[in-house]
């Protein structure tokens, strides 16, 4: 160990450190099993696939940070909708690229507004509101996206699979996105308001924060990011499919929690989202490499996630 004393101690107090530590350990086990074969490829693959989890995880993180009860379950449906709609509109050519992107953002905006309206106007708890809206959104996607599979425009397909020195281009962009959102979270009025509301909604209102406007913006943000993910995923996997968002329901929540964001709200952690997404991917890779059967893989995934959360959650509530 090069780091010593207080510096190391401070590092271990960061809630995100555990997800990176887990990532490293899982990678080492995998690589030692394959005797070093494909060590670099595994990292490249992890970065490629984790990117999509990071995009939706960031949105989910903002939602969860606004306080207990806030969650967005419409992410998978949103991914499916924006994938289907944009692929059909762009119809495999580069001509409609900008329009496609704008339409994707439009989908996200609408889903976000719809979610928030259910929560606010009909006073439905977010967990039910976003779940029921996801059925509606998915039905729309099915109705619209019926028929043949459309290939993504060449530019989008290239961009989402482009490598820069073995690092996926898209991952670099999303690292930038995460950095940007980290600044938003800590250094802008919006971000501070999100953190304040998550700690104490009543106090936030009395401190002059427009609570409902911030919650609205947050659900819209999550919607936008999920739609962005749908667009990128469709480009990456050669076309949209209606079930391509499925795995991101639990994944988006899991990376938020493993990444050290407080489920009770008010404390968010952006670097942790990346660490946790890499960890989740490498964990499955490791279990595959070790030759675990489907059942064992699920059990191990569950147990290891619990272990990481326990380790990361060791941080005591300050009183």
């Amino acid at each position: 160990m090069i780091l010593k004393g207080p510096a190391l101690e401070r590092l271990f107090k960061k809630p995100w450190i555990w997800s990176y530590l887990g990532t490293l350990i899982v990678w080492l086990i995998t690589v030692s099993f394959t005797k070093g074969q494909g060590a670099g490829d595994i990292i490249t693959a992890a970065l490629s696939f984790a990117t999509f989890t990071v995009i939706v995880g960031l949105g989910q993180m903002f939602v969860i940070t606004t306080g207990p009860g806030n969650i967005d379950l419409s992410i998978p449906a949103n991914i499916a909708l924006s994938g289907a709609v944009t692929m059909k509109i762009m119809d495999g050519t580069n001509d409609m690229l900008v329009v496609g992107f704008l339409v994707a953002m439009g989908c996200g905006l609408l889903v976000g507004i719809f979610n928030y309206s259910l929560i606010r106007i009909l006073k439905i708890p977010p967990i039910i509101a976003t779940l029921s809206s996801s059925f509606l959104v998915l039905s729309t996607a099915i109705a619209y996206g019926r028929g043949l599979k459309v290939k993504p425009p060449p530019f989008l397909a290239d961009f989402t699979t482009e490598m820069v020195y073995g690092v996926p281009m898209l991952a670099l962009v999303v690292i930038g996105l995460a950095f940007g959102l980290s600044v938003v979270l800590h250094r802008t009025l919006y971000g501070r308001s999100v953190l304040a509301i998550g700690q104490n909604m009543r106090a936030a209102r009395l401190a002059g924060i427009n609570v409902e406007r911030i919650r609205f913006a947050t659900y819209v943000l999550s919607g936008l990011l999920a739609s962005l993910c749908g667009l990128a995923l469709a480009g990456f996997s050669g076309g949209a499919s209606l079930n391509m968002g499925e795995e991101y329901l639990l994944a988006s929540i899991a990376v938020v929690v493993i990444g050290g964001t407080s489920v009770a709200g008010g404390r968010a952690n952006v670097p942790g989202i990346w660490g946790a997404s890499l960890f989740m991917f490498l964990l499955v890779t490791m279990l595959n490499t070790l030759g675990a059967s489907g059942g064992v893989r699920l059990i191990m995934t569950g147990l290891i996630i619990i272990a990481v959360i326990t380790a990361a959650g060791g941080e005591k509530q300050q009183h």
Partner: protein
Amino acid sequence: MSTARSRIVDLKDVTKKFGAVRALVGVNAHVDAGECLGLVGHNGAGKSTLMNVLAGTLSSDDGVITIHGQDLAAHYNVRQAHRNGIRCVFQELSLCPNLTVAENVRVLHTALKGVGWKQRARRLIRDKLEEIFPGHGISTDDVVGDLSIGKRQMVEIARAFTVTTEPLHLVILDEPTSSLDGITAKQLLKHVRKAVSKEQSCILISHLLGEVLDYSDRILVMKDGEVVAERPASEFTRDSLVAKMGTVIEEGSAKVEDPAHKVRGTTPLMVRAQDKYQETGVELLAYKGEIVGLAGLAGSGQTRTLIQIYDAAIKGKRTEKTAVEGPVALIAGDRQTDGIFPLWSISQNVCIRSLKRMVKGWMIDPAQEDAMAEKWKNKIKIKTMNMDDNILSLSGGNQQKALFARALGSDAEIVLMDDPMRGVDIGTKLEVYELIRTEADSGRTFLWNTTEMEELNNCDYVYIFSEGKIVSELARDDLTEEKVLRSSFEKGN
């Protein structure tokens, strides 16, 4: 040292550190059966820490804790404290807000079990509430979160005095009267004397020195984590207590003389409000530069009116009942639920209301944030080494100061104060009164909900609430305690 009475608690050289802050520096104290021990000191003097150690909620770093003659320091905790008949009514209330009054009683008394426990819990707390606070108006099936802070405090106090299987020897009352109005506070203090006459003991912590002088047998004065004086209550006077605490106040300085002898109505009208449910009656008016008091029994509609004014200002919503000219800020008395952000530093807590003006481009300028925090740390004397420490590292009174800094440092022209001096010591109070007066003279308008006469004396004009309505108004020169009390009991029309 022979003791005629049996000694319940004996603390020797108890120390406690929080990081670099020495909260307790070798404290010696004892409590005998059948006495009321008064405990006074400034915010951060270590009173609450000492009581937390005694109640078992904090463990001491060093020292001897002897309870009923047994040394328990090594493995002392809340269970031990309860088993030995020591109960504590904390300054930060400790009831579960999602449970009913009766269910909260069950939380303390594990003996209430089996068929019909709820019925027994109801009877237990109802009888005790009747005994201590006759006419309390609390139903045992009320959910605690729905009760006003005053009523929650009454439930918490009554619960501490209930007995099932475990004995009751000592009740610690940490600022018990700060959320109660004058009448219920008297009822409680009377009950304390009654309990003492039955060989039970109490520790009474209060910033209202009159209470401590009148109702304690012996008084302990703490300063900077040490006991600096201990004498029978009869040997102290208000002045000698204050002197021991370390503040010198001149006689009568709590009553500020009217500097410019303002004439009402010569400055612009800032706030006009009538209670939402009020059909007729007095209308609340506040002119620029005035300090307007909202008086009456606790929970008579003062807080609701303040929130109504606040909402009207925030939403820019002007109704028939409310009109507000200018930005507002609110200082909450119930700081746990309405005030602080527990995950944040002191600095972040102070600056949240003023972030808008610190934005450069898109981002908040950290330098301006630090500057504001530092400025108010000095101006209002927040007792901390570092404004970047967590807000909860401060004592209750200092947390309240941070909330004052948040409001006074903002751009608000109208400051609404909802009984903001709960748990604030007398020295700080005088500083804050002074600050409020200066701010008012420079054109800020204050609306001040308070149940303490001393604070009403600082107001230019006072409105008195009863049963949700404003029943009368008094100019500063006409203000007397008797008039306020009489109006407080007036039936609303």
